[in-house]
């Protein structure tokens, strides 16, 4: 349950970006939220809604894109989607594999209002 901690990180990054881009307002923030990030999107949303009230981002809208995991097979090198553990390569039926996408949360874009 570290969604509050993550939402706090988001607010810190918004502050940094607002200053850097000399923005008047940040109207919208878009996240790429990996399914294997270890955090829950709906809890994150709730945390952000609560925390933003105390900041200059009261009106900032949050958009979350859920990113499906992409796994690279260590045996045949092909990339596949996996939703269950352990990862099973559908091409060569080898177990395991390396996550190449969908295990992190990225701040993808901002919609800003300039002076």
């Amino acid at each position, binding site marked *: *349950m*570290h969604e509050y*901690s*993550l939402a706090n*990180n*988001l607010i*810190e*990054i918004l502050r940094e*970006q607002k200053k850097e*881009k000399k923005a*008047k307002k940040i*109207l919208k923030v878009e*996240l790429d939220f990996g399914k*294997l*990030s*270890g*955090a829950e999107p709906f809890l994150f949303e709730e945390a952000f809604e609560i925390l933003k009230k105390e900041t200059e981002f009261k009106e900032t809208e949050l958009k979350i894109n859920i990113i499906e995991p992409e796994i690279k097979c*260590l045996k045949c090198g092909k990339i596949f989607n996996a939703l269950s*553990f*352990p*990862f099973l390569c559908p091409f060569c039926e080898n*177990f*395991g594999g390396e*996550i190449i996408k969908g*295990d*992190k*949360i*990225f*701040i*993808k*874009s*901002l*919609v*800003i*209002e*300039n*002076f």
Partner: protein
Amino acid sequence: MTKIIKEDISIPILKVNEEIAQELREFFNKRKIFVINIISSPGAGKTTFLEKLLSFFEKNKVFILVGDIETERDAKRIREKGGNSYQIVTGGTCHLEAIMIKKSISLIPENTEYLFIENVGNLVCPASYDLGEHLRIIMLSTPEGDDKLPKYPKAFLTGDVILINKIDLLPYLNFDIKKVEEEAKKIKENIKIFKISALKGDNIKEVAEFIKNKRKEYFKT
């Protein structure tokens, strides 16, 4: 006249933690301190394991940072066994972050070769936070049940070593140790597994040797 524009930025939400972890790793490398991050559920036996492990190291070369939500108990337990330990009280935070380690590095004595970080008891959140470690140990204990791996895959995916603790209790439990080993290999082919009893001391020496060899390997000049 205001202007509304969309900007693509692609910044990881844990950017700050990643930067500090990298900075820590560089600091540890310069000082040749080998860092081990230990993650498990509460009560799996991390502190007992570290107490036992200490006896296979020169005590003045080991420093232990312990993360807990409240109390100094675990660090005190390690100090009573002659170990050098400092408690990080997180005050409600369910994991350790790189910044908490950074605030404590001034406490690490000059001749330290091994830094063990006993993370907050939690198999979920600590998995997402790089602490600048060189080796990540995930511990599970037999009374927790044999379905921990599929339930908490992220922790095991990020681990280098799995310790199955409390094997002395196997005769009393319905714990399929073979199944756990097979599942671990399927999740991560090259993961190293040790079956230990921290309380009785079974196979702790082997874990100590493994860690020492890993340090040698990492810092070979």
